[in-house]
């Protein structure tokens, strides 16, 4: 079996074979909603960190008793899965105050007493300054104490350093893969990467690193097929988890070669310092790197980062694909349009529901976008 098939199979369900094996050996699984819950903290407590997604969710009827249909579909689908008992294999779940829709997940989960019964609300920062780093480090210490209590394994500076090393290795391997996407024929396309991220965030880091090594070796010789006349694009996105959606975005000649998605490089980028106080190091890395739109004073840094990465990866245009009804995403998309128009960088803004709908419309837009880019390039030649 090609390693890519293994990755797709593992990504297709949250309670995958690795999770089952981990649990059968007495291990505990802690689900997290957001990139602001560092996996290292959970790993250091001896648990398996699992990034929540709506994989397998077909409807949001149950969730719409507690959320309006005009609320974020990530929140709705996740709650719907929760209400249906799909996370009962988890021993705990960590919520965040990243945005209002996500914050309500904690309230609704508790109100409906959906499994798992062990729930923790982590306050996350909304600014990226030094005071916020210190506060965030304190919150991480509290999180570590909580998870350690649940697993019976106290998180120490040493154990956290050890976890950080393991995850840094993963980041370096991912970095290597991204470097291979700079090639004229990129080693992996966006759709494969999305399956990979979903796998990596749902299996032990050690197993993830082994998969990454095998993948790097495979795609070095046998890269993902590339469309003829491929148009290299950068995906600036918030939450995008449906591989079918990604495939629709990559239809025709469109090829995603780098991204800042929160279920993507936005989550994995930047290593954590392996020196000094590990909680402070984690807080610094998460807050001081280019952030997600949840960080209110980070816009300029995000914009510059997107532009710089798009240039470095030789991208012809930028795609911003965010969740419908996400006000943070809407505002970001609007300002991106103003800024990239000023810089004459081809840009398109799309919206999606977490799952389903509108594939035909997306394909039309992406085709037109790649045609537009070809026209601009010819005019500038």
């Amino acid at each position, binding site marked *: 079996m090609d390693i890519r098939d293994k990755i797709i199979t593992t990504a297709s369900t949250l309670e995958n074979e690795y999770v089952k094996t981990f649990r059968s050996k007495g291990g505990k699984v802690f689900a997290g909603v957001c990139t602001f819950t560092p996996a290292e903290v959970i790993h250091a407590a001896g648990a398996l960190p699992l990034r929540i997604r709506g994989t397998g969710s*077909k*409807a949001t*009827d*149950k969730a*719409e*008793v507690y959320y*309006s*249909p*005009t609320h974020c579909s990530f929140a709705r689908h996740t709650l719907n899965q929760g209400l249906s008992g799909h996370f009962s294999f988890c021993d705990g779940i960590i919520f965040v105050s990243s945005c209002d829709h996500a914050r309500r997940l904690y309230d609704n989960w508790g109100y409906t007493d959906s499994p798992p019964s062990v729930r923790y609300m982590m306050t996350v920062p909304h600014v990226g300054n030094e005071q916020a780093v210190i506060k965030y480090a304190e919150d991480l210490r509290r999180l570590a104490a909580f998870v350690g209590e649940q697993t019976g394994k106290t998180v120490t500076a040493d154990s956290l350093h050890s976890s950080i090393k393991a995850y840094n290795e993963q980041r370096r391997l991912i970095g290597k893969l991204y470097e291979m996407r700079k090639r004229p024929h990129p080693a992996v396309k966006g759709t494969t990467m999305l399956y990979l991220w979903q796998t990596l965030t749902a299996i032990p880091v050690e197993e993830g690193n082994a998969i990454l090594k095998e993948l790097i070796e495979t795609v070095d010789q046998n890269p993902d097929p590339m469309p003829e006349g491929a148009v290299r694009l950068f995906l600036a996105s918030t939450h995008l988890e449906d591989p079918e959606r990604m495939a629709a975005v990559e239809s025709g000649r469109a090829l995603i070669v780098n991204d800042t998605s929160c279920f993507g490089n936005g989550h994995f980028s930047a290593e954590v310092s392996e020196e000094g106080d590990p909680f402070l190091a984690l807080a610094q890395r998460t807050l001081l790197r280019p952030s997600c739109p949840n960080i209110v004073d980070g816009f300029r840094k995000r914009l510059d980062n997107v532009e710089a990465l798009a240039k470095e990866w030789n991208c012809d245009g930028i795609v911003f694909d965010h969740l419908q009804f996400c006000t943070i995403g809407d505002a970001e998309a609007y300002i991106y349009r103003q800024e990239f128009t000023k810089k004459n960088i081809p840009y398109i803004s799309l919206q999606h*529901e977490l*799952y*389903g*709908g*509108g594939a*035909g419309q997306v394909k039309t837009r992406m085709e037109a976008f790649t045609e537009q880019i070809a026209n601009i390039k010819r005019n500038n030649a």
Partner: protein
Amino acid sequence: MRSIGIDIGSRYVKAVAVSNGGDKGFGCVPIRGDMKASVKKAICEAAAAVPSSLFEKTKYRMTGTGHAGKTLYPFSSPSQCLARSAFEFAPNGGIIIDAGAMVIEGIILSHKGKIIDTGKNERCSAGGGRFIEIMAKALGVEFSQIDSLFEKSSNPYAITSGCIVFAESEIVTQVNAGKKLEDIVAGMITLIAGKAATVCDILTEKEERPVFLSGGLSKFKTLQKEFERLSGVKCGKLSVDPIFTSAYGAALIARDGK
């Protein structure tokens, strides 16, 4: 003594005539152009089954959302009429979910016939009878075929578009892609039943009471069955055709003064 309730909806006028002796008459007329003429016709149809003597004055009561401010008769709100009607078949109180042309609305009725609380599906129109009308037309399917098509389906298609217009093009795309008609019809019915079930869940969260499904959409047997499956409740029986529940309530209010 004869009382007549008139429910002016967005597209139809429904009228119910009741006598003190319990006779009932019904009239349902589409509104075309002159609303007053349609109202008159519906009243005549209903009154024909409940004759009254020359010396008795008929009492009237009006309700509905399609009257455009023209209160031809004394008016009671649709919720009040629905509640009054429900009280007839749920004298110990209940939850009535009315699935009409535009919205799905639910009310919780106490054992004294008072409205305790209400719930509605969101203001999006992809949750009412109009949605079914438009979809059925796009598929070339008659209302009378919907139940039998649903029963034939083995793989209901989950419609993802919330907007009626985009849902219409979504199902046309699916038909073009070879999806079976019965699967799309089943998906359509499941979508509406799901929205009704959500309203039911919202209300049963607050009070556990017997549930009744009314309104034009509830005439689809498969929709009622899907609703029961998704909400986990068994629906009680109404004592009138579900499209007349509001008009019946209006007639009872006209008769009893409350």
